[in-house]
């Protein structure tokens, strides 16, 4: 049966980190939205480690917040430990990170979805897509109920033909205890969408009271936490939370009551166990065909690839306040369960540890993301959007970023509005999506700060400033918040101008000169000038931003100049229906690559490997010719 006569504007399949952001973004833009999940009790589940943020990811979460997403505030309100990584380094590479209470995180997000106008949440497993011609028009479910929708956002995570491995033991499912979406893959293949396999893994979970923490090193949270959401721009009524633990309030003191993580390490015995049983590992015995990430190796990989490293660090991370379960960060493996138990017991402090859940590897289908436009819409099937691990990424933050954009762009598609595309020069989310759709990926893609050409401009504190024009253009934040964001931007520009143009006392040149000498100077006189009283009384975040931009103006303007240099070709859009193979003057190799990627702008085209500047010249001429030829010089 068909459930709805009038189609939903947007149907989101899957309620993980990508699906939740997609559904919220679409509903908040006023679109009628349906969120389907196989299990309402595992909404926004952190399937792997109980942490949000970290290098580059922390910056992304702040960008999500600047675009009206939910991840930042959900983290702030459910975190049990905050740490600012790289605190000793410059602002550009400092990243907030938080341990979260997994259940609290889920509950609050579930409740947020429940209260969201225009959004309907329903428990059903999507078994297939409904196509009309080359368009998607709805989804089929395991309940034999069909839902019709104008657009569909697919966020299947690791569930698409998910297969879990523990040694030789195999279970179908995307996560321990959950199901596998077995039939949906057929729908994609039917539509001509290519699928491949990836693999990821997760470590065992241990019972806290069976651990001896006295043998481990404590890792405490920061005394003054760096939160993810921007509060200076928010009204109190922009916030809400769930009192499931009875102690959280707006203005809750995050610094108090934090929970610690614990550090220990593997031993020679662990290494021996791994080496002697390597042939039993699913990954080393050829059981797994999917490609795993280089940056998140299993313990087998670590001992094999870094044979001379005697031991590896392990982190015990609490999974929440209301549970005694601990996550063993660093001990991801696909060895058989009996070996896992011995391995765990070979670690100082874990001698008597009781395993609550085994470690396992999981293989799943992904759709190589070069099959998408930068809007995250499929090139093969109109109105079909993909976000999260199905695009070959890894990480909650990467998933949430894509979900947010896919949700926004599904609505834009329904309304005939231009898509939201964030430039590589505007934020990590821009880098993420451009990398995915332009270059694709061979391993689960994780964001690193080194992937961004303009990293120095991407300090986490500037996310609102960098993205507010997008938030404004697509109506992603409330008018009052937008007004505050704009005012803050004006203030920052005003104060930069002020400090650069006014003389500091005692002949130190301008305030700007004196600040640069104090912050980046190499002589011993690192004395901050006395700054104007009116500046000192500005909000902390604003002052930080102004001082960063002034003190690093040399490097920042170098990045800005590079951006300006490329801005010409970034602005030129490639007409979507160009047949590259018919373009005279293009090299065959380039024409093939261009037809596969179908870049959105000349800038994107220039980043495709094998496309050279002459090809760009040819396209430039072609585009100019096809739109009437005359330059508006």
């Amino acid at each position, binding site marked *: 049966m068909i459930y709805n006569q009038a189609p939903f504007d947007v149907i989101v399949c899957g309620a993980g980190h990508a699906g939740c952001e997609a559904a919220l973004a679409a509903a908040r833009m006023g679109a009628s939205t349906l969120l389907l999940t196989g299990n309402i009790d595992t909404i926004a589940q952190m399937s792997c480690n109980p942490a949000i943020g970290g*290098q580059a990811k922390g910056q992304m979460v702040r960008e999500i917040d600047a675009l009206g997403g939910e991840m930042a505030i959900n983290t702030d309100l459910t975190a049990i430990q905050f740490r600012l990584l790289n605190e000793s380094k410059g602002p550009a590479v400092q990243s907030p990170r938080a341990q979260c209470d997994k259940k609290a995180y889920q509950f609050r997000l579930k409740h947020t979805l429940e209260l969201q106008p225009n959004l309907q949440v329903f428990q059903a497993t999507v078994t297939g897509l409904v196509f009309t011609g080359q368009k998607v028009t709805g989804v089929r479910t395991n309940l034999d109920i069909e839902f019709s929708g104008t657009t569909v956002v697919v966020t299947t995570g690791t569930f698409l033909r998910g297969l879990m491995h523990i040694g030789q033991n195999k279970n179908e499912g995307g996560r321990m205890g959950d199901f596998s979406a077995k039939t949906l893959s057929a729908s994609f293949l039917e539509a001509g969408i290519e699928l491949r396999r990836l693999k990821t893994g997760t470590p065992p979970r241990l019972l806290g009271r069976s651990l001896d923490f006295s043998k481990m090193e404590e890792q405490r949270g920061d005394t003054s936490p760096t939160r993810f959401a921007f509060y200076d721009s928010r009204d109190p009524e922009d916030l809400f939370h769930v009192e499931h633990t009875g102690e959280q309030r707006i203005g809750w003191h995050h610094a108090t009551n934090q929970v610690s993580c614990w550090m220990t390490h593997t031993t020679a015995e662990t290494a021996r166990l791994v080496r002697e049983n390597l042939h039993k590992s699913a990954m080393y015995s050829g059981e797994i065909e999917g490609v795993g990430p280089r940056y998140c190796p299993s313990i087998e990989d670590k001992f094999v690839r870094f044979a001379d490293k005697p031991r590896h660090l392990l982190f015990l991370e609490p999974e929440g306040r209301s549970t005694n379960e601990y996550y063993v960060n660093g001990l991801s493996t696909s060895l058989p369960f009996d070996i896992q138990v011995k391995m765990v017991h070979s670690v100082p402090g874990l001698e008597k540890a009781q395993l609550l859940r085994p470690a396992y590897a999981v293989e799943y289908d992904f759709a190589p993301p070069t099959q998408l436009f930068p809007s995250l819409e499929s090139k093969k099937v109109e109105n079909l959007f993909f976000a999260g691990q199905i695009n070959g990424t890894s990480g909650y933050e990467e998933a949430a970023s894509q979900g947010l954009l896919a949700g926004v762009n599904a609505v834009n598609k329904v309304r005939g509005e231009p898509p939201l595309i964030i430039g590589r020069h505007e934020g990590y989310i821009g880098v993420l999506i451009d990398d995915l759709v332009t270059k694709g990926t061979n391993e689960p893609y994780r964001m690193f700060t080194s992937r961004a050409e303009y990293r120095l401009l991407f300090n986490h504190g500037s996310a609102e400033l960098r993205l507010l024009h997008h938030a404004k253009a697509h109506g992603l934040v409330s008018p009052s918040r937008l007004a505050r964001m704009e005012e803050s931007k004006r203030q920052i520009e005003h104060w930069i101008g002020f400090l650069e143009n006014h003389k500091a006392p005692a002949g130190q040149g301008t305030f700007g000169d004196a600040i640069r000498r104090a912050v980046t100077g190499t002589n011993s006189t690192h004395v901050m000038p006395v700054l104007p009283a009116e500046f000192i009384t500005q909000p902390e975040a604003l002052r930080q931003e102004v001082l960063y931009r002034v003190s690093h103006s040399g490097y920042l303007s170098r990045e800005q100049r590079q951006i300006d240099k490329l801005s010409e070709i970034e602005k030129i859009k490639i007409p979507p229906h160009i047949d590259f193979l018919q373009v005279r*003057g293009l090299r065959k190799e380039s024409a093939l690559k261009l037809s596969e990627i179908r870049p959105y702008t000349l800038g994107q085209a220039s980043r495709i490997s094998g496309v050279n500047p002459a090809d760009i010249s040819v396209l430039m001429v072609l585009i100019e010719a096809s739109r009437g030829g005359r330059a508006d010089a």
Partner: protein
Amino acid sequence: MSRPTDTIAALATPVGTSAIAVVRVSGPDCMELAKAIFGGPPLPPRIARHSDYRDVNGCLLDDVLVTFFHGPRSYTGEDSLEIASHGNPFIAQSILTDLLARGCRAAEAGEFTRRAFLGGKMDLPQAEAVMDLIHARSERALAAANQQLRGSLGRHLGDLTEGLLLVLARVEAYIDFPDEDLPAEDRRIVLDELSRVLHGTSRLLATHHYGELLRDGIKTVIIGEPNAGKSSLLNRLVGRDRALVSAEPGTTRDFIEERIILGPHCLRLIDTAGLNPTPAALERLGMDKTLERAAEADLFLWVLDATRPLPTLPNSVTGRLTPSNTIVLFNKVDLLTPGNAHAPLPSPTLPTLQISALTGDGLTELTDSVVRLADAFRQGQGDEIIAINSRHADALRRARECLETARQKVAENGAVELLASDLRGALDAFGEIAGKIDNERMLDHLFKTFCIGK
């Protein structure tokens, strides 16, 4: 479509010796450039003017014909310059190098034509023809570049790039994985490898100096006592009366410079004031300049008057004369009477020739000897010949600048993300020569070097 904001330059005539060579410049800075290079009042549009081309350091490169075109009445529709120099490829290259040093960008294949099209200078039906042309040019440029990169330049650059990626991986690891169990940051390794890359970059750039030798010519200084016939020799070699010649000693007070092509070599012949043991005040000035020139010479032609006793030259000059950089020329052999042989040399090892600048006797032997010395000189530059071009040198210079800043940062324990920014600047510059360098390559190094992943 927005107008380009940068000014491009390129050789418009085929590389090789020809009657004239044309360097073409297009973009908003043309008027400023013309003023800076040629001085004087603004060039009137579309009128060729004869003018000296002096480089940023004020050195005369050539006398040229320069024509200014005021946009949109130009080939590209932008302000343009066409600089016609003598057809020696070395001169044209020097001019191009100078334009890049002044802030121009080396034009991409077909870029003038593309700008012409985008500037509305061509009709729509021409678009496809333009695209074909860009294609053909880029294929040629690509073939040429590939040939060069397959050679020793490619190997050296590849080695430097790998070294730099290694350094960058070591730096990036501590930025992106602060929570990992990395070994203590070892800036020593970074510093050593960085120094190696910097050294290699400088050496590649030095081959540009050799390239400059090829283009600008091997500095060949003609020295000798007054009235030994130095200027006559120059004129004879150049083949026209460039230097003012007279029978009166000390006619050349300033030095005169000419370029000549001898076999595969380009020589910058520098005629100098005579070195007189007892100079007059004005002559003294000229002599000081001669000594300065002698100090930076690559080759010496020491002209002696065969009819006169051996003169004494200042030690600062004779100390530099070796058999591999000097030819002693007994001039005016036409005036020698039989039995009246010239005096023996103080240093019997220096090769000698007898010539007459007046009659041309011995000039063929002289040419052969100079070519031999120049050949040997070239080999002295290294076993491999890597002559990088102006565009490469421009990129390598920017790379070196970034690397030097980076090395300073490492030494001072400066901010690591800024260090990374400098290293990436250098990597980008390398990439301009050999093609884009994907960040994946750095990550490969990183994950090979460090055990990342909790």
